[in-house]
């Protein structure tokens, strides 16, 4: 009786009176204690059931971004630090971290290694034992960050494959996961209009456009897919629009049916190719784009009404 809580029929029910009448509890105090325990338990179980697949994916995506930020910072530090001892080493990022963690001082580079000549002729200063140990540990930690990143990435690919196979297929697992993360959940992403999907991640440009006279953003985070990134500039807006619509379609298929549907991908490829062949060369600019809506002469930008 205590748990069957949500119906509007319960609205007028005096639970305390009912509990006492039915001898479920004897005293008012007993009811108070029971009510508190039930409420705490109910809230706890609702919180733990709230941890769904898309929540986990969102956490993973955000962890990925955190690791990227931190590993960049640390690897820059390593470059600066180790550079004093071996400035000729032209490695950055992960290769640098791997190199430092394996060899430490450049004196340890074996003759067979391609970098040996540079290492023995280096103008860098000598590395003391204590410094070498420190740098090695530092680099080792950085390496493990890179490993974790790969681990998370493959986790996302796997999780997206089962949660949102169509979305992964159309947008790629990582971009799909990012879209879910920015929307808040797969359900929200599925309920967005595709024009919103098109500009997710371009909030600043979008609001600047809505407030003033800048052109609207053509693409938000979906820019990161090769479909748009590798396209010539005059096709990007058109491609982004139809790409976003297919992403919406895929997200909806995933959320409401959960089945993989290869026809979405086929239709998308057809559509994108049609756009590419229809716009083979850059349009001639009639007037200098001033950024004012209306003066751009493209009525298409205004279609679809206000959002």
């Amino acid at each position, binding site marked *: 009786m205590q748990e069957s*809580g*949500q119906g*509007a029929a*319960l*609205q007028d*029910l005096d*639970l*305390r009176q009912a509990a006492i009448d039915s001898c479920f509890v004897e005293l008012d105090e007993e009811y*108070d204690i029971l*009510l*508190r325990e039930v*409420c*705490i338990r*109910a*809230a*706890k179980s*609702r*919180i733990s059931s*709230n941890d769904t697949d898309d929540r986990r994916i969102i956490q993973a995506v955000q962890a990925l971004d955190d690791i990227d930020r931190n590993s960049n910072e640390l690897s820059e530090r390593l470059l600066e630090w180790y550079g004093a001892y071996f400035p000729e080493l032209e490695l950055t990022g992960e290769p640098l971290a791997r190199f430092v963690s394996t060899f430490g001082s450049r004196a340890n580079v074996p003759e067979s290694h391609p970098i040996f000549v540079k290492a023995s002729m280096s103008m860098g200063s000598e590395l003391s034992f204590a410094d070498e140990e420190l740098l090695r540990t530092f680099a080792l930690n950085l390496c493990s960050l890179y490993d974790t990143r790969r681990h998370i990435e493959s986790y996302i690919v796997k999780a997206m494959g089962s949660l949102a196979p169509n979305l992964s297929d159309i947008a790629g697992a990582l971009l799909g996961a990012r879209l879910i993360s920015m929307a808040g959940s797969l359900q929200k992403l599925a309920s967005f209009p595709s024009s919103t999907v098109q500009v997710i991640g371009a909030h600043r440009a979008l609001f600047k456009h809505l407030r003033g006279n800048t052109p609207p953003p053509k693409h938000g985070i979906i820019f990161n897919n090769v479909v748009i990134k590798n396209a010539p500039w005059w096709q990007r807006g058109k491609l982004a629009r139809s790409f976003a619509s297919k992403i919406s379609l895929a997200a909806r298929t995933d959320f409401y049916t959960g089945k993989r549907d290869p026809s979405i991908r086929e239709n998308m490829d057809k559509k994108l190719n049609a756009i590419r062949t229809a716009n083979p060369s850059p349009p001639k600019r009639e007037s200098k784009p001033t950024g004012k809506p209306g003066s751009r002469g493209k009525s298409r930008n205004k279609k679809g009404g206000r959002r």
Partner: protein
Amino acid sequence: MPVEELSDGIFRINVDDREMLATKNLMSGISVYGERLIVEEDVEYRQWDPNRSKLGAMVLKNFEIPLHYDSAVLYLGAASGTTVSHVSDILRDGLVYAVEFSPRTMRDLLQLCDQRPNIIPILADANKPQSYAHIVEKVDVIFQDVAQPNQAEIAAINSKYFLEQHGHLMLSIKSRSIDTVASPKRIFKEEVQKLETGFDVEFEVLQRKELDPFHEDHLGLVARMFVDDEE
């Protein structure tokens, strides 16, 4: 005189020549969110930061606080329980129903509920009082601190369901969550007007004051539900 009781359970303490707001700690030795614990004449108090709590700011703004040792309070927008913990301190023999919508902040609130016997947590939307009407009984005071555009409406429907006749409503209105650009003064005026005449329950506003410098663009308000005797 280092300790002065401003209102039931709310104290002003003089420590090292600085005055601070505090409540008597219900669970001695436990600091809830990292606040300072002060022992004065064998009684432990918890410092109450008005910059983190609308209710604390309202105390310092000389509001008459309608909370008593044995009040029952419905707290809407409990968040992670910073203010709720002080309300729980004040209501030594009372009860507070803490309603919060976000599962993430509810997680923190639950840890508090585990420690304290007089808080009942409710994970629900304050817009839908039907969803917790079976749990909450009539209360003496509704305190509401939700950052929603329809704050006045939420206050009104919850009062209709749960507030005792002549019970008090304490409201913190955040102008920014109603309209980010409009002038706060105008929004406050409109909201107060809505409360007074806009719904089927009416309120008599007893006190209203802006909560700066503790909280920018917030209005604190204490009202009493006005009961129509004609029916």
